[in-house]
């Protein structure tokens, strides 16, 4: 379904000044599969998500979704996407935020209204539908982000650090939402890039461990569901402290990473 072939991505065009975020990535995500991208900061997880959705262009290699380029696929089929911080326009009411997105999803006015009500209900924001986005807490805004995923189930869904800012109830609702999405579209390919290994282990069929833009490990479904194994693999790459990477690099401190990778 989503096919990365020898994909590299460099930021910056000046010779010697650019930064490689992804290097020679070969990855295939099949229909109906939920794959987790894990790894330390700066591993390239968010870049992979951006490449898959056509927000970024690969410096080398090709990305295809269902045989099409990412932008062609998204323009003709649409995709699900949840960023680390869902940031709608602050002055809009929660139901208006979703209503606008539902209309862009191609739903007619009546259907959009119905789906918005259902989605808000499913994420526990039914009572907040008339509140402005700027008045919602960070966790509530992220739940609103989960709700926009539910407006129209898509064949491809990508989540980039989706659990950031969510309380335990919000995390549980996101997990339920993912199960619901996969139930409504059994063929959906789901990619979750996250540091939250406990959540990842609960939802992913398999995990791909990235480090400095390279795939360093692939854990099949049995191992991929084990949070302990995932944590060990990530810590071997450097983890959130960079300890493992520093040890592997001969004690040098890890490079400072921008963003979540």
């Amino acid at each position, binding site marked *: 379904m989503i096919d990365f072939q020898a994909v590299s991505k460099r930021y910056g065009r000046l010779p010697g000044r650019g930064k490689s975020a992804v290097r020679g990535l070969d990855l295939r995500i099949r229909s109906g599969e939920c794959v987790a991208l894990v790894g330390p900061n700066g591993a390239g997880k968010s870049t992979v998500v951006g490449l898959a959705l056509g927000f970024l262009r690969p410096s080398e290699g090709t990305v295809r979704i269902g045989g099409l380029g990412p932008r062609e696929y998204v323009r003709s089929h649409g995709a699900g996407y949840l960023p680390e911080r869902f940031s709608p326009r602050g002055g809009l009411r929660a139901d208006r935020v979703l209503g606008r997105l539902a209309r862009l999803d*191609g739903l007619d006015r009546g259907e959009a209204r119905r789906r918005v009500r259902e989605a808000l209900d499913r994420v526990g924001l039914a009572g907040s539908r008339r509140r402005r986005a700027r008045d919602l807490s960070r966790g509530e805004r992220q739940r609103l982000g989960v709700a926009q995923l539910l407006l129209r189930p898509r064949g491809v869904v990508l989540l980039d650090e989706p659990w950031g800012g969510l309380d335990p109830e919000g995390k549980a609702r996101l997990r339920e939402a993912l199960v619901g999405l996969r139930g409504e579209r059994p063929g959906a390919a789901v990619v979750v890039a996250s540091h939250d290994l406990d959540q990842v282990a609960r939802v992913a069929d398999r995990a791909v461990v990235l480090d400095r833009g390279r795939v360093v490990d692939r854990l099949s479904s049995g191992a991929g569901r084990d949070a302990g194994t995932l944590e060990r693999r990530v810590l071997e790459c450097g983890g959130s402290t960079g300890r493992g990477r520093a040890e592997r690099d001969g004690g040098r401190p890890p490079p400072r990473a921008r963003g979540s990778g």
Partner: protein
Amino acid sequence: MTPGIPAALSFARDRAGRAALLAAAGAALLVPRAPGAGAEGFRAGLEAGPGSGILAGLWGVLLLAGVLVLWQGVVASDVESGRFRTTFVRPVWRPGLFLSRHVAALLLLAAAAAAVAGALRLAGAGAAPDPAGLLLASLLTGWALGGLLLLLSALLDRGDVLAAVALFLAPGVLEQGTAAGRLLSAGLPPMLPLAEARRALLAGAGPDGDVLAAAILYGAAATGLALLRLHLREYRAG
């Protein structure tokens, strides 16, 4: 607020703040001329030099630019926040989306200006401009200036700020006839002819055909380049 940045500059980092600053600057230019002023913004008996004439036209331009910045939504802050990403995963054609927002902002703005002028006329304010003329003048100026704002916003971080600065500087620099003025005028909308066309429209006369064509072509070229850039550019996460 970032330490060391004066409050006014920090305020200008926000799109609504920038729009408010532009609108305030426009109002500041308008208010001293308001009491007893004619349709062109001058009190009877005062002599108006060419610089003042341009200034009088500028208040409307700044108000227009302020509202365009506020409504247009094609500025770096939106791109940087990653807000467009959740829109662009929908089955939409990006240039079409940007163009529809741009045109909707222009139409709303021109309609609002005409409504205010109409209300002033109904209230018996003698200095109120002709609503139909104001509608056309707003559309013409907005299309040309809005194109520039859209283009600079698409090319540069906070490009709308650069556009506003250029519009502030333009009359003074253009009047001097210097090399810098000629260079600036090559990239700016036809400011002086536009101001004349605006005055003609507000007075109920039709604009010069050449000015009309120049403003429409400038707006179309700037908008087209901006849409191409917005179509091709990468959208990184916020």
